[in-house]
């Protein structure tokens, strides 16, 4: 199978995943042990409550025959008519909610991916270049601890540290631009440096927590990758031919060591989508994870189903991007009989 054939197969395979995922959300609305309409209305014992209940059932399509409901539901999802919120923000279309909440989560995820890349990978490379030295042990074990720490706990600790500590009268809040430790970043007018700095600073603690586990993984994998390439024959040959050490490292070691890091980074980005829920709840950021949590706690099942579908969509898309990168970077893809 050729490389593009491989990619085509992956593309084709993502279709049933989407369909099965959408069907699962349908089952959730139609057959969940928690009646979505009852969860929305709350009290169904009064006359008005019962009427409201029937109306909601009608609106959700629960009164339609099974097959017809399924067909309309699936068509709606795949044409991205994602319905509306019923409890969290009654009447607001889901798409509108995503437009409001989405950018904050994207901003958070962007920094949560970026920080580990720019901290974890250099640290890992450094440890790999100086293996089995005290510094290596220190860095590697920090990475291991950093990886195992639960996000929710790290968030709580960091939150307190930032809001209580002060050095020479400077606290985190008053550093540079005045911000609070928790709360959503203001993403309007990012071209203004003042606003940009404020928005970055506002998201930074949450991003560090969210990226913590990725950072640990990236330290570890970068270290192993450097160790593996530095002992490779071509590196030795380059050295023997008198290629300057700088060039050996830059061109032959680091570049090759980056290959195993690409899937790690994309996989980590995938984990972040889920992790954002806890971080956003603790840091009180009104992002999509927070929205999902609110929908779950308040029994807003239609919104929950739509959000789940959106998440599946994102993940499938990200997986495709990863496969695409693979095909571009690694000429062996599609030929090894995986």
């Amino acid at each position, binding site marked *: 199978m050729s490389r593009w054939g491989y990619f085509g197969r992956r593309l084709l395979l993502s279709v049933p995943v989407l369909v099965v995922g959408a069907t699962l959300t349908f089952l959730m609305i139609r057959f969940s042990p928690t009646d979505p309409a009852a969860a929305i209305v709350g009290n169904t014992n009064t006359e008005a409550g019962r009427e409201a209940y029937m109306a909601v059932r009608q609106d959700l399509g629960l009164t339609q025959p099974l097959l017809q409901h399924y067909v309309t539901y699936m068509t709606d999802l795949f044409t991205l008519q994602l319905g509306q919120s019923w409890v969290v923000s009654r009447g607001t279309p889901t798409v509108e909610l995503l437009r409001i909440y989405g950018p904050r989560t994207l901003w958070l995820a962007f920094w949560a991916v970026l920080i580990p890349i720019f901290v974890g990978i250099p640290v890992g490379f450094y440890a790999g270049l100086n293996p089995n030295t005290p510094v290596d042990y220190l860095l590697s074990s920090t990475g*291991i601890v950093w990886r195992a720490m*639960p996000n929710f706990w790290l968030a709580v600790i960091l939150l307190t*540290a930032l809001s209580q500590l002060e050095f020479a009268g400077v606290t985190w809040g008053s550093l540079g631009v005045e911000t609070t430790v928790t709360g959503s970043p203001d993403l309007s007018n990012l071209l203004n440096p003042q606003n940009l700095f404020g928005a970055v600073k506002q998201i930074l603690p949450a991003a560090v927590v969210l990226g913590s586990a990725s950072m640990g993984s990236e330290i570890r994998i970068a270290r192993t990758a450097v160790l593996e390439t530095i002992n490779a024959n071509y590196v030795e040959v380059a050295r023997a031919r008198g290629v300057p050490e700088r060039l050996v490292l830059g061109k032959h070691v680091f570049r090759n060591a980056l290959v195993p890091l690409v899937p790690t980074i994309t996989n980590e980005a995938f984990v972040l989508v889920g992790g954002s829920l806890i971080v956003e709840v603790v840091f009180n950021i009104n992002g999509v994870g927070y929205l999902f949590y609110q929908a779950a706690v308040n029994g807003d099942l239609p919104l929950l189903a739509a959000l789940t579908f959106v*998440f599946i969509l994102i993940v499938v898309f990200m997986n495709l991007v990863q496969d695409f990168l693979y095909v571009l970077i690694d000429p062996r893809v599609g030929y090894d009989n995986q």
Partner: protein
Amino acid sequence: MTDEDTAGANAADECEGTAGVSTPGEDEGTTGANAAGEDEGATGANAAGADEDPSFRERLAAAPRPAALWALGAVLVVLPELGALVETLVVLGSQVPAVLATALAGAEWVRDLSLGAFGPAGWAVALALWAFALAVVVEVLRLAVPTRALLRRFAPDVAEGAEHRTLVRYERAVLAVAVAAAVLLAYTPALGLVDGAIGVFVSALSPLRELPTLLSREVIPNQGHRLPGGGWEGTFLGLPPAFAWALRVALIYLYAAVCVWWGLRGYRVYRRHYRVSSWTPTDDTLGALRVHRWGNFGFLVVFLFVTMAVFAPALGPTTVQENIERPYSYSIQYLNEETGGIEEITVGRANGESRSRGLPDTNVGPLTYDDFGRFHPFGTLPNGKDLFTFIVAGARISLVIGLLSAGASAAIAVVVALATAYYKGVLDLAMVVIGDTIMGVPRLLILVLLTVLLGDTWLSEIYSGGVLLALILAGTGWPYLWRTVRGPALQVAEEEWIDAARSFGAAPARIMRKHMAPYIVGYLLVYFSMVLGGVILAVAGLTFLGLGITAPTPEWGRAVNLGQDYVASPSWHISLIPGILITLIVMGFNAVGDAVRDAIDPEAEGGTESGVEGRGGGA
């Protein structure tokens, strides 16, 4: 830990042995495929198939001394805790009617749901699923009962003459009737019979329950009160409660260490005196594990954690029942400093006076006494309850959920991996799609989603929601495990011995079980401990959000949540201690997984990411 391991290996070996007898022609294949997952306990059963080697029993009879000595030691080790063991048995046994009743409730729930949703057709589908589930149960039972060994012992001529397939058919029929009878029994008032039988069982064991247990809070009590003239009343030898408690904890850990040591010694005795071959690959694996320093750290952490969970009731300075669940139903005596007299107060009121709320005068820190002469090794919670008792009880619930869900997802992963590797084609594709879909929703989101959806059902009431959590974690966790063993499974399915077995006419189920499974299980072992760490993390994360284990049942995530306002205050211990413990334990389980992987497969460097490991990002 070791005990369970050995028991598991034994059971597996019995199946091997039983099956091995019937068709000696396939034995070469077995030993080859066995290399990864074999022995530990009694390869002796295996050797019964080959004619030259004496059976395990014969070897025992030939040199009984080392085994007898070891068994004597084992009896001595068990004796001090016999009462507690019997107590555990009785408690577990008395749960049987409740489990049956729950299963019935589950059946009714499924029936109502399917009838309500799809009408009679749905009910028919549900019935078919039930029948399938029953068939699976029957098959598992059949594999677990060593029919052939029994036959060989009691009716050798029948065993020799019987065709393998006929025998299997008979076994299935008998078991199906038995299971059907059991189900019928459960539907009729005969459920009372079960209750009665259990009552008899309990009363027969009751004299044993009275046996003193060395490591109990009754033998070494730490709860007492100060005397007006100094000294303590009611504690062990009049020691201060802190010392009495520390003594008990030290003894418990010593005892657990002795148990583990004796178990390992038992394996050494077996290896030196009773194993046929003087060397097996397992020896090398164990040797590698011994010198793996990172792994040693992991095993130590896991040992400390498991002991904490197993001995939870005896480890705490007080009990969950008394201190956390029903504090107003118990009372304690204390020395009132003002009046100088001994007074009585309910635990609930005493807790109210021992809160940790972040102010210097309303705080009971780690390793301190409160005003009522109660010692708090980890301090108190904001509501005045004892944090250490909370932590050890939480350890137990975490471990139970972890074992349940990791076990279930490992079982699903093995079955799926075997079936897809053997049949390939459409089945493989379908499972890939299902697995990808499950992995497609971020884990934490799907956990939140399902806990909310299933939160109102009868399932969520068992074990404070623990069983529901375990099921959800298993249902969403197996694709990750499957992905790690899919490669090896596909590989082994291509081997020549599989073809050979097929051409001998072996049934697919048998090929998968005997020739493919042992190879897979070795790989699975590596990830099992990592999954455990991940599950503990996930449960803590959900409970932190208020969605997992319901209050007041202790769970570590809730302690972190309760203490989050006090991190930078004198009451820092509430959030910090559980968090550090979670981090340590997750690291420990990951380390064990790393060590086992390095020992089994030295080629695989730590560079590959499995996605199974416990990591902070998941929760």
